[in-house]
């Protein structure tokens, strides 16, 4: 697949007003709002364009499988520090568009924190280059980071440059017995100390914590924290990252993004938590409004993460925006996709 083909297709769709459903590996078709429009399969536009281990960046075409990218990084002892989920066949374009980060997010940051540059095809078929390959770049508005989590509604992310980091020298995982409130208390207390905690997960009375860093730091932190060693730790964290763990089971799975100190959400269902308490999961059949309201009162928001399509389309996958912000979203959508051809209604029905 050639770059010119992508541009040609977008131009043609803009002229005819044909909606396009941008698709990489299709691993996140379950996520967000409605899937509408003619499928534009980007999995053929793939390949690593540049990888400079000592400059700490990698540039790849959108259809590049995350697995291919991570294999190239692993050869040089590096990684995508935000540990994006693969959910089978994720591509780098979809990874940035969806903006989902994995367990290491609590220590390293989210997808958006690692986006250095994008080559974008806007909704009129114009090619736009934002950001670049250097760590620091404040020339112009930071449009590259704006793409993270935009679900492809602002443009076709044809190429992405991500910051990469060295893999930690050592990792150890510990397990503690505690209820949810106890886990939240401990994680916040530990979060205020200089401890190398790179992931945390609480579920069903057990708190798992991963330590990453220099071997001496990991050993010292283990001494301080106590707990038992977690067996098969790599497999455990992979199951969290890929959501194959039993904690994520349920017909309707909510993701609540809350202040890390928020008390346990008092709703029936199966709760679990990550990111030092800042990301909560709730498998529940409680009505949508109750979950949204509980998240709002706790100071955050709730995403209908996995749910039947009919429910996501009816209720919206994401928390409704205040009027002023929604108006701003619509204006920004017009800037990059004036004819509204990219992924209509995938993020919000109004976009």
């Amino acid at each position, binding site marked *: 697949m050639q770059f010119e083909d992508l541009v040609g297709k977008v131009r043609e769709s803009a002229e005819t007003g044909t909606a396009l459903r941008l698709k990489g590996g299709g691993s996140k078709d379950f996520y967000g709002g409605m899937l509408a429009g003619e499928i534009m399969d980007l999995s053929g536009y793939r390949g690593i364009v540049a990888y*400079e*281990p*000592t*400059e700490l960046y990698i540039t790849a075409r959108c259809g590049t499988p995350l697995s291919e990218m991570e294999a190239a990084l692993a050869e040089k*002892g590096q990684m995508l520090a935000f540990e994006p989920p693969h959910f089978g066949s994720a591509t780098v374009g979809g990874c940035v568009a969806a*903006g989902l980060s994995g367990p290491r997010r609590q220590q390293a*940051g989210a997808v958006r*924190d690692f986006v250095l540059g994008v080559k974008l095809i*806007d909704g009129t078929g*114009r*090619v*736009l*280059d*934002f950001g*670049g*390959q*250097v*760590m*620091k770049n*404040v*020339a*112009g*508005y*930071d*449009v590259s*980071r*704006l793409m*993270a*989590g*935009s679900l492809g509604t602002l443009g076709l992310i044809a190429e992405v440059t991500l910051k990469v*980091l*060295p*893999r930690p020298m050592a990792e150890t995982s510990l397990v503690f017995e505690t209820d949810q409130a106890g886990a939240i208390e401990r994680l916040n*207390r530990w979060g*205020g*100390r*200089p401890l190398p905690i790179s992931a945390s997960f609480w579920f069903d009375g057990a708190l798992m914590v991963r330590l990453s860093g*220099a071997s*001496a*730091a990991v050993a*010292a*932190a283990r001494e301080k924290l106590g707990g038992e060693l977690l067996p098969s730790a790599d497999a455990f964290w992979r199951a969290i990252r890929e959501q194959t763990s039993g904690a994520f089971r349920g017909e309707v799975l909510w993701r609540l*993004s*809350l*202040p890390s100190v928020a008390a346990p959400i008092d709703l029936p269902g199966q709760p679990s938590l990550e*990111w030092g308490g800042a*990301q909560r999961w709730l498998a529940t059949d409680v009505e949508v409004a109750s979950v949204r309201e509980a998240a709002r009162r706790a*100071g955050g*928001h709730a*995403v209908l993460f996995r749910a039947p399509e009919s429910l996501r389309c009816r209720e919206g996958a*994401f928390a409704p925006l*205040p009027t*002023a*912000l929604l108006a*701003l*979203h619509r*204006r920004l959508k*017009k*800037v*990059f996709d004036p004819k509204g051809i990219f992924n209509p209604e995938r993020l919000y029905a109004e976009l």
Partner: protein
Amino acid sequence: MAAHDKVFHTDRTALAAQLKIVLPPHCLLVDEEDLRPYECDGLTAYRSLPAAVCLPETEDQVRDILRVCQQLQVPVVARGAGTGLSGGAMPHAEGVVLSLARFNKILRIDANARLAVVQPGVRNLAVSEAAAPYGLYYAPDPSSQIACTLGGNVAENSGGVHCLKYGLTVHNILRVRAVTMDGEILEIGSEALDSPGYDLLALLIGSEGMLAVVTEVTVKLTPKPELAQVVMASFDDVAKAGDAVAAIIAAGIIPAGLEMMDKPATAAVEPFVQAGYDLEAEAILLCESDGTPEEVAEEIARVCAVLEKSGARDLKVSQSEAERLRFWAGRKAAFPAVGRITPDYYCMDGTIPRKRLAEMLQAIAGMEKKYGLRCANVFHAGDGNLHPLIMYDAATPGEWERAEAFGAEILEMSVALGGSITGEHGVGVEKINQMCVQYSTPELEAFHKVKAAFDEEGLLNPGKAVPSLHRCAEYGRMHVHGGDLKFPDLERF
């Protein structure tokens, strides 16, 4: 769209009369002698006297000022401490300076949640000082941190010497409350780690006061490392020092700080601070490690091994906190130290891929001869951000013009080497022409449209950060892709 810069004609009497209705007398300055201190920011070579300066004390007053300015179509330039180095807060001659200096309260520190809610006029260092009793601090530390404010840091996406490990402002802000030109209050972000919808926080941070006026900021606080130690290495060749930087990163080490100074910079600094720098060296590297004592010991040993292998002629490891601070003192005092040996200096801020450093320094040496001016170089080596300090004398006719041309050539070279014209100081008025080199028409148009999505009439900080296409055509050094002529619809001069 934004082909030309907008021209404003302000009726000063009407403006003062309207502002007097919404502001108490002590919050409004209109007399020339009161306006004079506001005529420039940290980039003193560019000056302009505003029509009025407003010093509001409440968010309602900020809204009222913006409403008045919108009604009268008067430009507004928000200002923090005015320490910026790109002229981002330089007043508009027909406009109002909106100083947030009185928004100087730390509203809340939540040690358990590790965050602070502050007003935009709070100084960067004051946040860390207030958080210190809890063992926490605010990580981004621009060198102006004793004076610069959080509002300004948000506007510029400020960096510092610890960005490589701890990130820029954009990585350390949770929430911003801001007022748009039409008086709308935007709550962007929260105390959670993400928000539904587009990442507007990323867009607002680093927007140079062009999109909205920040009235409150929630920052992340970071646990203070137990220990920090620094290795000082000297090299007899700049290229070797550059390679050593790459070797450290290739070894899987992300130091807390990684800074370089060339010989002219150390020569300027050493008599000023007596940091113990090797004056014979062509370059010195400062590499800091922080964390637990065990971690630091391990990392320092690895860093020393890498530096020795990279051909460092001398290595010193700080043996006490006092010594660590002394090693850093020289780097942190580099600007004032250079200020002592020259009447004026002009600080540039390009970023380049680290591996191109030797090439860049060689080119700068050539430019010193070409422009007949000296240049000292300090470098945030870890993140490729170079600060050449071009020395000149504003009192000598023609020297400033030569310094400006020298700087422009460095910036354009940064772009040519695959970098950016600004790593942390912002575009402001200073680098606006070089934006035409870094970006082509479609991106510049997109930037103008993004601005219009927030500020339809273009009243917030007009003429800064993003050049009009007309300006780029006049500047004549455009970003050309594959030989196509950009701006075909514009006249040539």
